[in-house]
């Protein structure tokens, strides 16, 4: 049950509280940061004699170390109807639990923002350290059947703290590309880790022949297709092209997306997070 995501920050957190990530604060750490005058950091145990002798103004220099700081971890989840397809909802809940667990393990605060048509208060969890409220939220999420679109994502930035946070963006990105650009634009102040939840079943497991009637989960429009190998190939090509376009946009905003298509596993995400931190 306790799966841990080993997320590392390739940037320095501005949080003042001691934690597990590289921060901008100086204090009790292992990593030498700089010299400071004794008057600025009055810790005689850390006086660097060699630096003090070499100082042209012959004042005492004190070594200061980088303090490991906390970071706020947010899961920004798309809760539109299309996220109810197949096992996407379970994946979302599993990831939510894993992320909350690991954030609490690291001593970080964890928050959740669920976006449907708009942002509803019952799907908001402000950054906290209470596993209880997280599990209450997941229980509610399990009972919910997703509906509507993901328009709320565009306003999600307003519910994030002003300082740079780690934001896991969980979505299937089944909305127009300009909307995705707007969402990513609004999240530029934060470190966004896009996780794109797709299910192979929706495009690779189509039949070769036959008539199939599709109903859109978000706007209920129906479309009947006469499936044949050529059309099946066309649909798969369309999904591949879509994946390419999404990657292009995410990279333009400085983040590499992770496409989760073949079932969720924490190991895949950990491998991706480690690559990212290198």
């Amino acid at each position: 049950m306790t799966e841990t995501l080993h997320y590392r920050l390739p940037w320095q957190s501005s949080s003042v509280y001691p934690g597990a990530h590289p921060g901008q604060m100086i204090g009790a750490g292992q990593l030498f940061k700089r010299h400071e005058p004794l008057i600025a950091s009055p810790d005689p145990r850390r006086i660097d004699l060699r630096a003090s002798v070499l100082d042209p103004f012959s004042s005492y220099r004190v070594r200061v170390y980088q303090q490991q700081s906390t970071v706020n971890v947010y899961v920004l989840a798309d809760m539109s109807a299309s996220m109810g397809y197949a096992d996407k909802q379970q994946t979302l809940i599993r990831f939510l639990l894993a992320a909350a667990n690991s954030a609490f393990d690291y001593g970080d605060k964890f928050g959740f923002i669920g976006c449907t048509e708009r942002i509803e208060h019952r799907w908001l969890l402000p950054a906290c350290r209470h596993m209880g409220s997280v599990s209450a939220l997941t229980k509610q999420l399990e009972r919910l059947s997703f509906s509507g679109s993901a328009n709320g994502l565009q306003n999600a930035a307003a519910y994030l703290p002003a300082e740079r946070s780690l934001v896991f963006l969980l979505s299937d990105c089944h909305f127009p590309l300009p909307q995705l650009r707007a969402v990513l634009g609004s999240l530029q102040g934060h470190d966004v880790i896009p996780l794109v939840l797709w299910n192979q079943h929706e495009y690779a497991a189509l039949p070769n022949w036959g008539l199939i009637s599709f109903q859109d989960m978000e706007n209920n429009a129906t479309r009947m297709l006469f499936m044949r190998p050529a059309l099946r190939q066309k649909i798969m090509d369309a999904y591949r092209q879509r994946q390419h376009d999404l990657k292009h946009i995410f990279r333009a905003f400085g983040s590499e997306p992770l496409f989760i298509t073949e079932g969720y596993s924490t190991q895949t995400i950990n491998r991706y997070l480690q690559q990212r931190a290198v």
Partner: protein
Amino acid sequence: MMSLAVDTPWALTGLLLALLPLFNNGMRSSPAPWLTLIPGDTLSVFIVCCLRLCGVAAIAGLVLGMAGLHRTEQSRERIGHGAHIVLLLDRSSSMDDTFAGRAPNGSDESKATAARRLLTDFVKQRQNDLIGVAEYSTSPLFVMPLTENKNAVQAAIAATATPALGFTHVSKGLGMALSFFQQQPVTGSRIVLLVSDGAAAIDHDSEQKLRFWFKQQQVRLYWIFLRTANSPGIFDQPEDSRDDNAGAMPELYLHQFFLGLGSPYQAYEAESPDALKQAIADINQLENLPMHYVERIPKQDLSAACYSVAAFLLLVLLGVKFCEVER
């Protein structure tokens, strides 16, 4: 020109049901996260349109079938070359003899059979004519009014195969033949084709009436006299002046009466089936004036066609249903 009608008009309200396939494709739908991602497909759109039309047509066919769709009786104006012909056939018992005056055996056919055979051919050739059939023996027999239905005329001629009756009452037969032309527009030529093997005297009153009717109806008369061997012909002059009266030589006197009618008249004396054939060919050639007539087409029930179309479409839709896949 089509004029359609139904037996039970209120059943047509069921046609509203035919709109159902436009709103519901009748298929179990599979959820799709985002349809916009699925590329458009012209063939699919075409097939879907066809299927919807099939559904609409199938329901409409069933409803129209239940309402009892039919085509009403129609009359069609036609112009052709031909004539109004009344075949006036002698049904006296002597018609059942051969031209030689004997009872028919294997080699010789009776006069009635020959007349029947040749008239059937004649009717077959005259496709544009209105033909009626009347018969006479002791009294006139109304058989078939003027009609363009050749099958009915053929059947009426074939019906003369039944054994004939006693006497020859030609004046009443002519009267009935002429009555066929009443209430008929005068187009083309009007012909009475009298086929007989004997004659009878016509009394004075009947003569007067026939003269008047022939003039009034503008009817041409053709008389095909089937002459039995050794019997007096229509052109024979009496050898003895004592025989020169209507009782002794009715054929000659009838011929003379017809000549004096004042309307076109032609007599043929046929002593064999070949001569009869020649006479009929002659008439066939002569009577081909342009004529204007109204053809009647009977009411035609279309509900069976509606049901079969609907059944076919339903089979198609059933087949399509088997092709359906669901995820």
